[in-house]
């Protein structure tokens, strides 16, 4: 396994949020579906090495993250955009991305070029001097992705990136994700249409366990008329056998 989780157990206090989760992230866009409280954000934070696992392993770039040093090393390969990512409203788009490049310890001699590349990748070259606080929700989300992909990480983790976007902004954002700004993208959402529009693979998480892990095409299969029907059956019905 190059990127993924092995028998991961995670929780807060006495509450167990993830229970023996194993998933491998292949190249392409993986949609992480699940109802609110299923553990999607916890899974992503653990994968991003923000939370150390209670049990099991996080594997990044073929190496198991065991110690803090491993986590710092792994973070160079991960771009993470949290649900409500932090930004200074006074920073311009370019400055925001530069700041994130500094946070990611992108070498200073490469920083300028890589920032330009990331800004161009999300189509914000013309707005790179616009203040973050003056951007629309969709453009701010693009700037957030630019910050997450600066330094060309191998894995991009996007936690509910379409929340708060209007239909037009959402369509534009989907185009951006489909353009594959990073080789592997894990995208969490509770919107099935997001997964349909962007993902090649689907992972369904409910009550801290994976209910489905497979291709989007196989998700609905022949048993359900729509992907939505398949998902609803999965989150409210009996546990399906995991298809890998």
């Amino acid at each position, binding site marked *: 396994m190059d990127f993924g989780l092995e028998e991961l157990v995670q929780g*807060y206090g006495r509450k167990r949020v993830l229970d023996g989760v194993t998933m491998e992230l292949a190249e392409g866009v993986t949609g992480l579906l699940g109802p609110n409280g299923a553990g999607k954000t916890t899974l992503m*934070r653990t994968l*991003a*090495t*923000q*939370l150390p696992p209670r049990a099991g392993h996080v594997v990044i770039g073929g190496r198991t993250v065991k110690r803090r040093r491993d986590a*710092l090393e792994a*973070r*160079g390969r*991960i771009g*993470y955009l*949290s649900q*409500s*990512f*932090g*930004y*200074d*409203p*006074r*920073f311009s788009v370019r*400055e925001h991305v*530069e*700041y*994130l490049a*500094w*946070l*990611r*310890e992108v070498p200073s001699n490469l920083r300028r070029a890589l920032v330009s590349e990331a800004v161009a990748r999300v189509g914000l070259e013309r707005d790179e001097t616009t203040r973050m606080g003056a951007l629309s929700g969709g453009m701010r989300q693009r700037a957030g992705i630019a910050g997450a992909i600066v330094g060309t990480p191998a894995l991009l983790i996007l936690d509910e990136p379409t929340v708060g976007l209007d239909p037009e902004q959402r369509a534009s954002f989907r185009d951006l994700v489909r353009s594959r700004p990073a080789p592997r993208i894990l995208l969490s959402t509770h919107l099935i249409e997001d997964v349909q529009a962007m993902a090649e693979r689907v992972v369904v998480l409910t009550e801290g366990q994976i209910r489905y892990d497979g291709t989007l095409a196989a998700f609905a299969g022949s048993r359900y008329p729509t992907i939505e029907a398949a998902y609803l059956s999965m989150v409210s019905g009996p546990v399906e056998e995991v298809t890998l």
Partner: protein
Amino acid sequence: MGLRRSPLVWWLLPATPLWVWMTMSHQSSWRGVWPSASTWVASPVTYAAILLGGAVAWVSSRRSKTGILQDATVARRSPFAVNAVDVTIVLIYAVLPFLIAVVAVSLRNVGPAPDGWLWPGYLVPAVAVLATCAATSHVLGYLTSSTLLAVLSGAGASLIIAFYTAMPIAAPPELRPAWEHVGALCAAAAFSLAVALVVPVFVVGRRPEPASGRTRALALGATALAVLVALVAASSSGPSQVTRPAPTHLACAGVEGESRVCTWPDHAAYLDELVPLARRANQVAAGVFPPESTFYEFGLEDNTGAKSFKVLAQGHGLWFTAGGMADTFINRVTLRHFCTAASESDDAKRTRDITNLEYWLQSRIYGGNQPGDVVDVGGSPDTSEARAALRRSGEEQRVWGEATLSGINSTPCADTP
């Protein structure tokens, strides 16, 4: 980038010209005098610290809500490094108005002042107080959920720190900064900075979820401790100034044996003003007192101050200097006759006579009555006789002066065992 975009620029823009204006206007006595210029340029620090505390707490409170430090928990760079950069930016903005005022004062002083520069012992405490207030307010910004509360707590903590830190407000040449006091203030600033570097990370930069109540309580305790350390350091480190040994070479001007004035070398710039005053002193005292060949500034001739003057020109012009010269005349003639008076009424009369003679001579040396902005500590003494004498002719004044002096010297003495 962070420096350029910091909202603290809105503190810098008014604070810098205000600081320079407060330093350069109102007073001119510091010009040409390095120690006085040093305390004068540092004097706005108390007001500045309060405004700075509010501004820093406001900025930190807003920054803590942006989630930037929380996001650093998934960055390669340590949240401590991220916060350290923030603290550095805060410190730069905190001291920049002061440093600009220091440069302005230095440039203004280079011409008229003797060789030297501003005294670091008076500048460093100002930097230490600003750093302590900025660091404490930075933490308070991270600890308080309400921005308004953050501003109030930052300004309040800074008010307490600045108010209770004994910053020298004047620099008489016979005193120098006490390094123990300076060191204690620096240690307090270092402790506050350590708290500012660590606490915000523990509150918001360690885990994505909000800090526990216990962590917040510990953080608040550490901040309160920082304030306490600053107060204890300021109050327990002894006086802020200590006596300085007299120099081997004095700055003197005037004609040898006639109205000569000697000051500390640091006060050489005042000599041009003091020599005419000394000349007038000998002129107006003639006929009543023997002439003084040399007037010495306090701390140069003896340690009693009985036969010396002080240059206390802060807002009062040369009134006190004239008083010191008047005392030089009076003390030289009366001290050798001084004894415990035979009765309380004799003592009271002698005191009244000395006060009136002193006021009369002081006014004549100064060239006018006591300035209106000069306030006597402990209430104004009765100088009605002197004021009445000053309205008479020169000869009548001389006769009055002689009679008063004679009365002082002939005060009946108590029998000594």
